[in-house]
């Protein structure tokens, strides 16, 4: 739970607005929605991706199955063992559709160094050759260490301080704030 005097970047209303903005931007660039597939990065990227999926259909006002997948980058990290006291839990990767010829919307909560995205691109590469991969993030906090950019950004908030995103599905509330 966040502290009382935490610095809030986005409250729950704002987060909803940002998701809506992302959905609109994505649809603007992807005229043919039937070619879209959404993949969320474990853990919060998955929940965000699920919401974005709903939002896409709501904005477009249609009802159809958009292929959806989840992806865990643990096995693709280049910093195995440098992650503090515990070995990270390997979470499920499940991409139950053929990614070839799809425009993949890759979703994560915060974009920072770009290393997570680098891993995610490697994971996707091992599933096939999508038509395109487009990155959607809720918050871009800048300070990249790799030449990676988001195609769709909810909010640009450049900071060296850690940004935490809480989502009601896992954390009981929607909020983004500066955390230590």
């Amino acid at each position, binding site marked *: 739970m966040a502290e009382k005097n935490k610095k809030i970047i986005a409250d729950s209303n704002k987060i909803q607005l940002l998701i809506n903005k992302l959905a609109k931007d994505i649809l603007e660039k992807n005229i043919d929605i039937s070619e879209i597939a959404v993949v969320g990065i474990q853990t919060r990227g998955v929940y965000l991706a699920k919401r974005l999926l709903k939002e896409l259909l709501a904005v477009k006002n249609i009802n159809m199955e958009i292929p959806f997948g989840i992806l*865990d980058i*643990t*096995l*693709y*990290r280049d910093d*195995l*063992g*440098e992650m503090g006291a*515990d*070995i*990270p*839990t*390997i*979470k*499920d*990767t*499940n991409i139950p559709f053929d990614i070839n010829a799809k425009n993949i919307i890759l979703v994560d909560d915060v974009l920072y160094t770009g290393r997570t995205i680098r891993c995610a691109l*490697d*994971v996707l*590469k*091992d*599933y*096939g050759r999508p038509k395109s991969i487009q990155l959607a993030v809720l918050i871009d906090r800048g300070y990249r260490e790799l030449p990676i950019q988001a195609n769709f950004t909810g909010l640009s908030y450049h900071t060296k301080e850690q940004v935490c995103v809480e989502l009601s599905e896992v954390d009981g509330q929607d909020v983004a704030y500066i955390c230590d």
Partner: protein
Amino acid sequence: MPFNRKDLLGLEDLDKKEIQTIIDSVKPFKSLFTRSIKKAPALIGKTVVNLFYEPSTRTRTSFEIAAKRLSADVVNIATATSSVVKGESLIDTGKTLEAMKADIIIIRHSLAGTPEILAKNLNASIINAGDGFHEHPTQGLLDLYTIYEKKKKIEGLKILLVGDILHSRVAKSNIWALTKMGAKLRVVGPPTLIPKNITDLGVEIFYDLDKAIKGVDVVNILRIQMERQQENLFPSVHEYVELYQVTSERLANAKPDVLIMHPGPMNRGIEISSSVADSPSAVINEQVTNGIAVRMAVLYLLAAARIKQGKKHVNSN
């Protein structure tokens, strides 16, 4: 995750939590098998050596595939035990491999305790791929995982091991893992092949297969070695078949959804009838598939713990 070991020498040493950790880690590795590229870069740049002093095709291949699917570099060394007795000592062989910067050494040996000797003398991580009559921990884990996958639980299951318990490292590792996870274990075979102290491990002894098989959830059939007959441990293969072959008729007394397991290679028509081996209850091929995923999980967990240990070491200096 509570797994912080340099080596995997046996399942006797592991506690329930550690076993659970390994089991919980298997699924993501198994899910790689359904992709067109079944490989992840987790162990890229790591050197894994298969040091096999005993002939083995399945276990060695399984470890090799597991390591390769994690992008490790794999070297296979097969040596006859006899040449070891005459020539270079086990420890020297290990040290040589370490000098070549092997990160993980997987050892199979006909003598019990050999993985411990390597572990004591080397910094490389050691995985026991079967040592004498002692343990075969990855087989124990893959059997456990296979049961877990099918039955969704271990606690309370009645599991029967059939055959030569005395000389079986597979039986030993199965017993450690399954009893720790709360299964009820039975063994059946002639008294000459069942150590009476096995009851100390919480295992129930049967000599009559028909009684032993009653109401069990899993039957794990061990391979019978023909040389045991020469040691007078049973009078003839003919009699062994008569008393202990698992047949469809005998299985009728087990639970209807019984799982049939065998660590392989099978002697069809001896310890297991073909109709049982090929029945829908048999998960023998799944065991093989799961073996790779389980070994990937073990390799990954050891490699990760290893880097962590190494870092700790550097920090403390």
